[in-house]
């Protein structure tokens, strides 16, 4: 087997194992579902081109998340170009995701709005923990901070989040400003 084929086989394995986690990561953090296609395409393109830097497979997901985080930040600043890649995925996402705002549970919207109001690092620590299901050590790898810093920040972020949602989640049926769910500062 040539090294080229090994290299390709490895990339296919990494792609297959990580496509959905990365798609989910991107879709959770973009305003329009189809924009997730650009983020996923760019992330895997970087991975393909930098595959020599890619860590062994147990760690590769975290490495990809780190890449995706930078790609996403670039997207939020308007710096990510719609590339040549991923057009079909973009079309499918646009078609597949039809959100009926009326079907959203108010509690979820309240929480999403509160998360959007947190600082970027606080929000990332919480969402990587509870949406991506990463351990503090893994969150630390993605964010390039120490695990101790993640634990400290997690408890601080919880406290802030509790303050933010505390009042709003009191009486049931409380209506919130849905538009606040996507904060412009997301990419910072």
């Amino acid at each position, binding site marked *: 087997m040539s090294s080229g084929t090994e*290299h390709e086989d490895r990339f*296919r394995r990494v*792609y297959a194992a990580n496509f*959905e986690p990365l*798609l*989910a990561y991107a*879709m*959770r953090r973009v305003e329009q*579902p189809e924009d997730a*296609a650009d983020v*996923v*395409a*760019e992330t*895997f*393109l*970087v991975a*393909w*081109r*930098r*595959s*020599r830097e890619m860590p062994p497979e147990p760690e590769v997901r975290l490495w990809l998340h780190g890449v995706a985080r*930078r790609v996403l*930040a*670039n997207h939020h600043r308007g*710096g990510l*170009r*719609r590339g*040549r*890649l*991923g057009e*079909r*995925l973009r*079309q*499918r*996402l646009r*078609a*597949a*995701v039809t959100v009926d705002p009326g079907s959203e549970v108010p*509690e*979820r919207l309240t*929480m*999403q709005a509160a*998360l959007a109001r947190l*600082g970027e690092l606080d929000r990332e620590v*919480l*969402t990587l923990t*509870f*949406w991506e299901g990463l351990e503090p050590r893994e969150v630390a790898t993605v964010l*390039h*901070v*120490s695990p*101790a810093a993640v634990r400290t920040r997690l408890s601080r972020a*919880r406290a802030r*989040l*509790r303050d933010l*949602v*505390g009042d709003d*989640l009191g009486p049931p049926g409380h209506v919130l400003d849905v538009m606040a769910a996507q904060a412009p*500062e997301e990419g*910072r």
Partner: protein
Amino acid sequence: MTDEHLDRMVRDADPYRPDVITHLDGAAQTLLEEIMSTPTLEPAAEPPGTQSRRRVVSRLASASVAAAVLAVVLGVSVVNSDQPGGGGASPGTGATSSGATGPVSYSAMVLKAAEESPRLLIDQPGWKATTVYGFAEEEGTIAFRNEERELAMNWYPAGQYDGYRQDRLHVSKPEPVKVDGWAGELFRYSASDFAVMLRPRDGSFVELRTGGDWTRDEFDRVLAHVVRVDARTWLAALPAEIVTPGRVDEQAAKVLADVPLPPGFDAAALGTLGTNDAYQFGARVTSRVGCGWIAEWLRAKQAGDDAALKRAGDALRSSHSWKVLHQMNDEGDWPEVFWETADKVAAGESFAGYRDALGCE
């Protein structure tokens, strides 16, 4: 509300719907094949956009990049030999809307570094340099913006030219162009996205890359106005927001206005930082301040000098009110990392990794 309740609510608020994966009709496989049909050449992995490069750098806080960058910058000793003549003539309006007035002196090192950089400007009204980074290094970026359009100029060591070119040959067929009389090749990423790689000269080569929506005609028109200028003109043409060596003292005074300085801090040495935008300048200056106070804290701790220890701790904690860090906070993570590191040291909790975190020498 308990932590468990809160955590469950966060989990429940996850906007991702797993069923989306069943509606992709092979689009994931198509993307895989598209990606694997592109070249894997390592040098090309660097995203050409200046924004992404800048972002990486602005995260220097948490990476050893900072240390390397600072080491390169500081590896050059500076002789502040004032040069007569000053700023030189601006080649036009637009990018050359300099805020600097009067003669400006540049150190020999700064002029030498400018000589070694591509020194390209857009001699057309409306263009303004917004991002400058890496001026004192082999690689660098300068980005010009005109409303929604951006033109980034990235330069790299000449030795990487062949590798980059091989990669770009997969982007499109090259088309010969000239920029201020110098030969290059134009590559077309899409109908609105172009790049021009110039042939190497003086040890480096430049790639110009569009950002935002361009037409080919617009790109050609702007290319016709890209000019190469001498070092003094180039420095003088950068807008007031860019911290050129001539503006270091003034900007340093602003940055340091409410910042306590550690013992032995040499503000005059900030002239070695080259040319940076305000964010990068702020990061580099506060890096030196932070590193200085941490070194002082460690010294005082070892010496049992309680008064100095308290002074250093207070100084580090005071970073939460430094105006410069608050101004930078919208642009990147440097302030967050600075505060976290400073707090840990001031609390006597942890010193591991502070050098990497703050880019201490």
